[in-house]
């Protein structure tokens, strides 16, 4: 139990996917302009990331390892992720059109979110078990969501600031991410 909590704290705060490991930056910069968008993206990512983390573990352990083709993992994972996203979309459309309406537009973007592939690879590098993989994926997604949503709120405030011309846009967003990352450095050593 405590091992799981440590894993979660590590994934959410200490080794935050976005601010410390630089994973999932594209959606982080792209979909953080409004809080509502950020929340939608977070929910969709959390779902896919947790699921992908589990499925990629199974594929690796029960398909790639027995066949002795672990070196094909990149291809295998990207195919699994794409299939998973597709499947999620269809399932959502069938079972809950409302959910699909809210999260649907984010789903295709997730395929190219390197956090999803990243979590699958990190799980394997760390030798995580199935349960650990699931929680690591979930924690990573929570960390991503936390930072994305807080950043979206910050960005709404940023829009009103009198920023010097060369720094407007992506530049100040990066510098803000730097200061956020600085704040997260305080969690160094927690686990």
């Amino acid at each position, binding site marked *: 139990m405590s091992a799981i909590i440590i894993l979660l704290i590590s994934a959410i705060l200490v080794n935050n996917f976005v601010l410390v490991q630089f994973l999932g930056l594209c959606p982080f910069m792209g979909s953080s302009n409004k809080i509502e968008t950020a929340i939608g993206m977070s929910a969709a990512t959390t779902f896919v990331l947790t699921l992908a983390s589990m499925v990629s573990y199974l594929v690796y352990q029960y398909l790639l390892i027995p066949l002795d083709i672990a*070196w*094909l993992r990149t*291809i295998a994972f990207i195919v699994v992720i794409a299939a998973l996203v597709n499947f999620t979309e269809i399932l959502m459309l069938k079972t809950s059109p409302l959910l699909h309406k809210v999260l649907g537009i984010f789903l295709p973007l997730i395929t190219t979110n390197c956090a999803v592939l990243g979590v699958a690879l990190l799980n394997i590098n760390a030798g995580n078990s199935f349960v650990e993989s699931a929680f690591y994926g979930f924690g990573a997604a929570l960390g991503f969501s936390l930072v994305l949503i807080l950043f979206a709120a910050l960005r709404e405030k940023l829009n009103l600031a009198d920023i010097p011309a060369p720094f407007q846009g992506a530049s100040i967003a990066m510098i803000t991410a730097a200061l956020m990352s600085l704040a997260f450095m305080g969690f*160094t*050593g927690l*686990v």
Partner: protein
Amino acid sequence: MSNELRNSVSQSAFKLASFAACVGVILSAVFALSEARIAEQQLNAQRQAMNIIFPANLHDNDFINDTFKLDLTTNDFNQLDLLGLRENSTAYIARSNDQISGVIFPAIARDGYNGDINILLGISSSGSVTGVRVISHRETPGLGDLIDLRLSNWILSFNNRSLRNPEPAAWTVVKNGGEFDQFTGATITPRAVTAATAKALQFFELNKTVLLSL
């Protein structure tokens, strides 16, 4: 219409599958060509790392293939807990002219500033340190991470030391009356590594007969 659709779907599927097959074939070829070299590189890297801990002039065997287990569940060794290991680990034997010239084994300093510090150390058959390296740690950047050889030479200060050199009381950092330097601003990390090294030497001493007759 639906027939046409089915046709185009099956055609697409066929095309995709043939692409996948092509990619698979090409990749397999690249893999087959590089496989041996990759394995060799991996072994080389490992060998190189271990040769630094146990210099090549002190052994003539390939210790990558000359190993024994540090099994936490059995009583093969006296006070295995001195090494602080958290799981069963592999240790390596160095031989010179078929005589054991030393052993290389992992240890963990559990009392680092931010948790475990994993080290690998070599001890010669006479009981002196041939080399210590930090394998992984989470110490504070700029303070405790000077135990890493890439950042400072501190870790080399253990070379040729043994259980009686310095005397046991001095096997700690200067601040606590010992012989090993601490870093400005950081005592815990170097103290932990020093203590782990001393304990590893004790472990070697306690199990000398077993270790040298493997």
